[in-house]
């Protein structure tokens, strides 16, 4: 008996027991749908978040003085005078020091606890931010003694209500600043947008920072490289230079957006994998279900096996027939599972507003896996059927 003949035979046998075949397949359908769906969803979520993270700025690095837990002391702070030496590093395109601390904002009787960022001309370019109302800082804002500031939407909402804030004055810790622009919120597509709280910041030219505090230590330095650089190599280079400048026994932390993304991606991959393995367990359960039904089927069809052997079916023919039946069950189940899984991930992608990604690898994997499950869980019942004695089969009632 050739294979096509065997497949036709097993299909017609499965058709005789339609309901049972369907119920048997459900285990595999659910398992495969879960695996394909989860992997596709995981990929979609990862891609959409990566895209958002990238929008914070390409080739972006941050460096700051860190607390050394071993030596139990804070590293020497970074001052603007330390930055000159960084400019000699060839890979660096721009450097932007940031002074970041809490302030109190006030306008008439309204007030708001906010974050102040003293920045230079490069800051908005490096962090990829734009102004949506009014204007951005110009070089003269940094050169002359102009008490101007840019605020985020949250500040406008709380201090101005429905008034136009441009040209109005606010008090930052009792010093008057004129609002010249409102920052456009970060455009996030992924569900990160729902997690990130509304930015509550006020930006001023860094030369005014000393009006608020005596110390001039930099909170952190943004560094933009000309092109993608190796994380470890560049990190070591930066810390080496800082240690040379500030003396040993200090600790300077260096982080990059790419590094964050790759850490995040790894976490997502691991989470996806773990959930998939759990979902995959239902494939195993589905496989056991197939084996169970095939064993019942072999018993029920003992007489049929006897008849087939009596008219010339060899052991191999009987084995083939039952094995193919199991494989057809699991493969049809697997294929339906793939379709359900794709529909599921498309639906979730639509709702969660992340790109529709269908993981081809997961589809191939799921199909191969369900095929293999058919073989593994079908071989035992099929082998049992093939070894039955024809005379005993014919006498079986």
């Amino acid at each position, binding site marked *: *008996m050739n294979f096509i003949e065997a497949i036709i*035979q097993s299909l017609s046998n499965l058709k005789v027991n339609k309901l049972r075949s369907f119920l048997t397949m459900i285990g595999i359908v659910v398992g495969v749908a879960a695996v394909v769906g989860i992997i596709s969803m995981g990929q979609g979520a990862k891609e959409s978040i990566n895209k958002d993270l990238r929008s914070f700025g390409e080739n972006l690095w941050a460096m700051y003085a860190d607390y050394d837990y071993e030596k139990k002391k804070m590293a020497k702070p970074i001052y603007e005078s330390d930055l000159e030496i960084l400019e000699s590093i060839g890979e660096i395109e721009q450097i932007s020091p940031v002074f970041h601390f809490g302030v109190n904002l006030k306008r008439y009787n309204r007030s708001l606890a906010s974050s102040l960022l003293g920045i230079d001309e490069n800051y908005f370019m490096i962090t990829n931010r734009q102004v949506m109302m009014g204007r951005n800082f110009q070089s003269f804002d940094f050169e002359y003694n102009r008490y101007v500031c840019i605020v985020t939407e949250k500040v406008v909402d709380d201090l101005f209500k429905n008034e136009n804030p441009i040209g109005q004055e606010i008090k930052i810790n009792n010093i008057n600043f004129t609002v010249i622009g409102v920052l456009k919120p970060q455009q996030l597509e992924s569900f990160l947008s729902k997690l990130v709280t509304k930015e509550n910041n006020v930006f001023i030219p860094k030369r005014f920072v000393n009006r608020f505090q005596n110390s001039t230590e930099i909170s952190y330095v943004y560094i933009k490289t000309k092109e993608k650089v190796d994380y470890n190599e560049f990190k070591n280079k930066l810390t080496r230079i800082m240690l040379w400048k500030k003396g040993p026994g200090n600790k300077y932390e260096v982080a990059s957006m790419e590094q964050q993304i790759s850490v995040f991606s790894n976490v997502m991959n691991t989470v996806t994998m773990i959930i998939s393995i759990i979902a995959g367990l239902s494939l195993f359960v589905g496989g056991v279900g197939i084996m169970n039904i095939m064993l019942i089927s072999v018993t029920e069809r003992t*007489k049929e096996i006897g008849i087939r052997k*009596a*008219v*010339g079916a*060899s052991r*191999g023919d009987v084995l083939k027939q039952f094995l193919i039946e199991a494989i057809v069950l699991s493969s049809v189940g697997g294929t339906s599972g793939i379709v359900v899984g794709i529909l599921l991930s498309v639906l979730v992608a639509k709702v969660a507003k992340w790109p529709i990604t269908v993981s081809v690898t997961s589809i191939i994997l799921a199909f191969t896996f369900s095929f293999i499950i058919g073989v593994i869980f079908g071989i035992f019942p099929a082998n049992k059927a093939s070894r039955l004695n*024809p005379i005993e089969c*014919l006498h079986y009632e």
Partner: protein
Amino acid sequence: MEMIKIENITKTYKMGLIDVHALNDVSFTIKKNEFVSIMGPSGSGKSTLMNIIGCLDTPTSGKYFLDDISVEAMGDNDLAKIRNKKIGFVFQTFNLLPRTDALKNVELPLIYSGVSSKERHRKAKELLTNVGLGDRINHNPSELSGGQRQRVAIARALVNDPAIILADEPTGNLDSKAGEEIMEIFSELHKKGATIILVTHERYVAEFADRIIHLFDGKIVSDENVPKNNREK
């Protein structure tokens, strides 16, 4: 020419502590185109013998040569091929596949000999027509009478043009009229050159054959030729 040669065959079933000797030192030969009946009381070993001849079962000891080839030495694949091509088996209980129409039932042996589906269909239809069931080919066994079912089973046994036809009480489950019709078919086949071995309880059925072997307690007690005039009934 000796088509079937049985030499000192025994078949012993172990039933707990006792051995049941279903066949006890049985020897005989059957020539090509012979028509042999096997008679004997219930439990005398007739079916056991038929199953061994039909390569469905193996003897405990003794030798069986089919066309001078020792069956003992054959593997499962060769035995399956013999059951498929060389032997057509007709059972007392018909043994048709349920929920499967007459045509599909008759096609079954051809599936295992690799005949194309078109040719299978043609051959099965032709044989069903020969046994008078040309208008019943799409009926399931449950929709056919006993005699009709046995005719489907005969068509299936003949579909691969076997050299030997083995029939184990083919009329046992039929009324006398249907039984006679079935026996007419066997007579017809014999005239056309088939070698037939038939098990029966009934003397008048047995006398369709040239020769009657009597079994008793697993042993051959007589082996007689049927006088020609007797057969003309």
